[in-house]
């Protein structure tokens, strides 16, 4: 077990290096000039050149990358002469566009995204599994048709559509919810909850549709397993057969997908955060991309990758616990 985790973590470090290299290479291949975006209308070629040197974009990509990596482990110092400042390890860089360290920016954006992801996750698991289980048990009946219909609609509608539809319906038409304005949980829990509910629903609709489908198909497939027939032959009631023998097998693969989906969402839900004005990682990434803000882009990409790799490891461990045939060696 310990060996498995160490091996996974070392693989993770290697993967993160790979991801960050690719991010740097892609960024340097972009046609836009990050230095030119630093001074707006007052730009002269001289100012741009000065800023380029100040930001370090005049150096070769590999050297920029080397400075970035050493910054993570030992910290780095920006500027020269008297106008210097330190960025302590782990330093993911400094955003000149925002005038703050990347770790600070991420640290501020992460809680909102985590709240969004966690709430949506709970909702979509409950909805997805619930609808999937009902559909499977009522196969061919109206409940099943309704469930399949929901799954089809849910996967077909993009978040920007359902999000706006929800805002239009429940904020303007039937004003149950306040206009989207992010408030931290400790300041006003009720307002926070009301404000987060619509974005949670938006994301949950998108994901639960897929989960409903997976759950339904998984259950129907498991129903035909020989061991389910054995369970019936023992004289178990249909309820126990489904709960103990069918669901246990049918839901195990869903753990894998759920873990990775949750991790992906922790990297930020760009569209949903934009629609509902949630100052999370998605919004941070989006603005960094539109401003060619390399340090922020590199930071968020690496963080998201780390989440996904970690989730994979956790999922593998959970899977080995759930399925005794799988051993992690």
């Amino acid at each position, binding site marked *: 077990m310990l060996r498995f985790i160490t091996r996974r973590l070392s693989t993770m470090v290697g993967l993160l290096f790979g991801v960050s290299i690719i991010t740097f290479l892609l960024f340097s291949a972009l046609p836009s000039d990050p230095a030119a975006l630093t001074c707006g209308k007052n730009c002269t070629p001289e100012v741009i050149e000065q800023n380029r040197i100040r930001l370090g974009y005049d150096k070769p990509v590999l050297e920029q990358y080397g400075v970035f990596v050493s910054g993570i482990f030992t910290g780095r110092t920006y500027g020269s002469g008297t106008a210097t400042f330190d960025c302590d390890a782990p330093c993911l860089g400094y955003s000149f566009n925002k005038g703050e360290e990347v770790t600070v920016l991420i640290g501020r954006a992460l809680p909102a995204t985590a709240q969004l992801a966690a709430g949506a996750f709970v909702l979509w698991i409950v909805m997805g599994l619930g609808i999937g289980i009902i559909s499977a048990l009522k196969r061919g009946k109206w409940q099943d048709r309704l469930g399949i219909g929901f799954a089809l609609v849910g996967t077909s509608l993009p978040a920007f559509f359902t999000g706006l539809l929800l805002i239009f319906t429940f904020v303007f038409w039937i004003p149950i919810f306040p206009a989207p304005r992010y408030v931290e949980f400790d300041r006003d829990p009720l307002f926070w909850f009301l404000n987060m509910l619509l974005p949670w629903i938006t994301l949950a609709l998108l994901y639960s549709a897929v989960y409903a489908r997976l759950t339904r198909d998984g259950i129907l497939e498991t129903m035909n*397993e*020989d*061991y389910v*027939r*054995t*369970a*019936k*032959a*023992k*004289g*178990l*009631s*249909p309820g126990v057969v489904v709960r103990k*023998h069918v669901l*246990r*097998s049918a839901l*195990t693969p869903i753990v894998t997908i759920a873990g990775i989906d949750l991790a992906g969402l922790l990297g930020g839900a760009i569209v949903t955060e934009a629609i509902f004005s949630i100052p999370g990682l998605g919004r941070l990434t989006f603005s960094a991309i539109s401003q060619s803000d390399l340090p922020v882009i590199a930071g968020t990409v690496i963080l998201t990758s780390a989440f996904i790799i970690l989730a994979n490891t956790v999922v593998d461990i959970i899977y080995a616990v*759930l*399925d*005794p*045939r799988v051993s992690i060696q």
Partner: protein
Amino acid sequence: MSLLKVENLDVSFVLSDSTVQAVNGVSFELERGRTLGFVGESGSGKSVTAQAIMGLVAGENVELTGSVWFDGNAIDYEDEKSLRSIRGQEIAMVFQDPLSSLHPFYKVGDQIAESYLVHHTGAKKAEALEEAVKVMTEVGIPSPKTRINDYPHQFSGGMRQRIMIAMALINRPKLLIADEPTTALDVTVQAQILQLLKRLQKENNMAIILITHDFGVVSEVCDDVIVMYAGKAVETASADEIFKSPEHPYTKGLLDSLVGNQDMDSELIPIPGTPPSAADLPSGCSFAPRCTWANKDGMPCDSKAPALVETSSHHSSACFLPASGRSKLLERKSAK
């Protein structure tokens, strides 16, 4: 009074565009402590018959008619609750592939104990596990006290089938239905499992229905035999009779295609053709298209289905060939 009496059992599956009759008018009786073999090729309806008796063939698209008496009482297939009290308690079942028939996620001890707990309300888990260890010892699983904590995939095929048998036996059922219990096992293990079933039968005075396509298995353990073809019983007799003087061309064909049933220098004689699909049965005798004697001497094989009639005491067959001299006729064919 016999333990199990089945009369005119019909099982049909209603599909969207047709009805498939999987079992057609099967009747038989089974006494306590006896073993009845169901023999036939795949698709002959032997498994469906057995599962129908336990009420395991159910659903909206299944039509089940006929009557089944168990231990003097008619089984009511509409009454799910009374069915459940019979399943696993009075009638237990062992299936073909023990690996896929055991739940991969639960310890074998828990799976065996579960059978006990369902039918012993109020029993403690520890008590059920003790029973599990006892019955595992009976079926010959070494060091059962530690092995109850293992999962099915940690056992060999033969041991897994012993676990299935232990699970079926824990409530001391009056009837055990074994559906191809040795088909998925090595030949050496097959004999052990059959020996085990015989021993357990004697110890518990249990009746056994053994479903198989293998006459070798029949000769090993069965007292009586029902040969099934396309959902119908085509011949019923004692096991000795079946081997000595088969009366149905299909039975004869099965025996001729059995390895080890001929003289060393004679060849195996396969039955030509394949069994008909239950969805598309030939009119008349279902076996006629594969039968050497079909329609000979003015027999109406293609237009009428022969009824199962008693030809001698405890020996019945469904064939138009004249009963007298039929065995001789069949004998001649295999001799050439």
